[in-house]
């Protein structure tokens, strides 16, 4: 609870840039955890989560789409050698 209040306090005073990071960070790290490290979705969800929660997570065959604070990011699994890449995300 204290952490959430602190986070909201900080967010209200910071630039929106940090809000854009939330979905991009989750999408990229969840994608790599799932497709490159081949870990379970439960483990990867826990690994990718930050102190601010996301609004939605969609997974298709090779694509992860995440929405948080009205910003959406997509990470795609390219190949076993190239791993995941952010293919759509808000710019800084």
């Amino acid at each position, binding site marked *: 609870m204290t952490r959430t209040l602190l986070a909201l306090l*900080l967010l209200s005073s*910071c*630039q929106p*840039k*940090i809000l*854009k*990071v939330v979905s*991009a*960070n989750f999408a*990229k790290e969840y994608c*790599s*955890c799932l497709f*490159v*490290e*081949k*870990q*379970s979705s439960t*483990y990867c969800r826990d*690994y990718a989560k*930050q*102190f601010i929660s996301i609004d939605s997570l969609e997974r298709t065959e090779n694509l992860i789409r995440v929405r948080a604070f009205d910003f959406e990011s997509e990470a795609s699994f390219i190949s*076993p*050698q*190239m*791993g*995941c*890449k*952010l*293919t759509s*995300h*808000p*710019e*800084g």
Partner: protein
Amino acid sequence: MFFDILRPMKTIMTFLSCLSFSLLAQSEPFFTESGEAFSFKDQEDIAFDPRGKFSTNSVLIVRDQTILYERYANGYDKEKPHRLWSMTKSLSSLLIGMRLKDLDLTPERPISADLPSLSSNFKDQITVRHLLHMSSGLNWNEFYERNPFQSDVIEMLYLSKDMGKFVASKESIAAPGTRFHYSSGETNLLMDWFKKTFKNDFQAHDLYPQKRLFDPLEVKDATWEQDASGTFVGSSYAYMSPRSLAKIGLLVLNEGKWPLKESEEQSQLVDPLYLKDSFKLAPSVCQTNLSNLMKDSSYGQHWWLNKACPGKKKPFDKVSKDIILAYGHHGQTLVLFPKHNVVAIRFGADKEGTFSRYKWITAISKELNND
């Protein structure tokens, strides 16, 4: 006539012998289990301490091709690749050394010769060596979760489509070579330089790590991710299993030659002089007034070291000054013990950051020295 009958039989026999040879070659593992009396219990108690707020996913300790200790947790096993985070920087260093050798260039090459878009006032003076030493002088904030609000590294990794371009836009706050400042940006600027040396041959660029580093070592599980512009994210995004990373460590300990056995035909994959330079303390480290957290830092060319600046302590005071290290976010650690020909790897996911590398490395060193 008789020989005509034999000919197909000979073909079949040749095929069968090739098949059995290839099956034999495939089944022969690179590493073998140890019969030695190492317990490594002290390091195990540290790495897998159930009271710790950290999460160790694997520990592997090898001497040459012999496994001395191996343990996995949290769904990881010997086959699964693990993220290296900033240990990727040391792989990038190997790649840069190989590329310099290919092109007959020295690390004194100004990066502006290949990367003309730098914003810095000192752009014509920044060399490949300065970037390898983390001493370009470019302004940079290397914060992660603890202070994401002012973090250049977070903006680079998650909001920038071209990481090299993002770093190239930074201004200088010190002359090149005068100030050590750990920066993931410097690595990705190096990787942008690396990409530019291939001109427009993107395929050769994309296949380079696999063909030149991973294939010769028969590392089959390595992944190296790129940014949206096709630059390898040399700061953070390589993945491989502990056994594969141990092979990279053994390559370094073997002064860049592979395979390890002199009886086999060896290739010099990495220039030994470049490696030797990589493990010399960067002059800028001793010239910089470092903050408390970094005060005993010891850094070479994208490798952490255990050498002390004059009047300062070694980071690991009870361990040989010759060890070579790579560190990554969330406690990733690679340690090379040249005197023992030993490679130690610890992978983890320490979001709280409380794993003590100092205690773990000291415990391993103590056991090796008691041998």
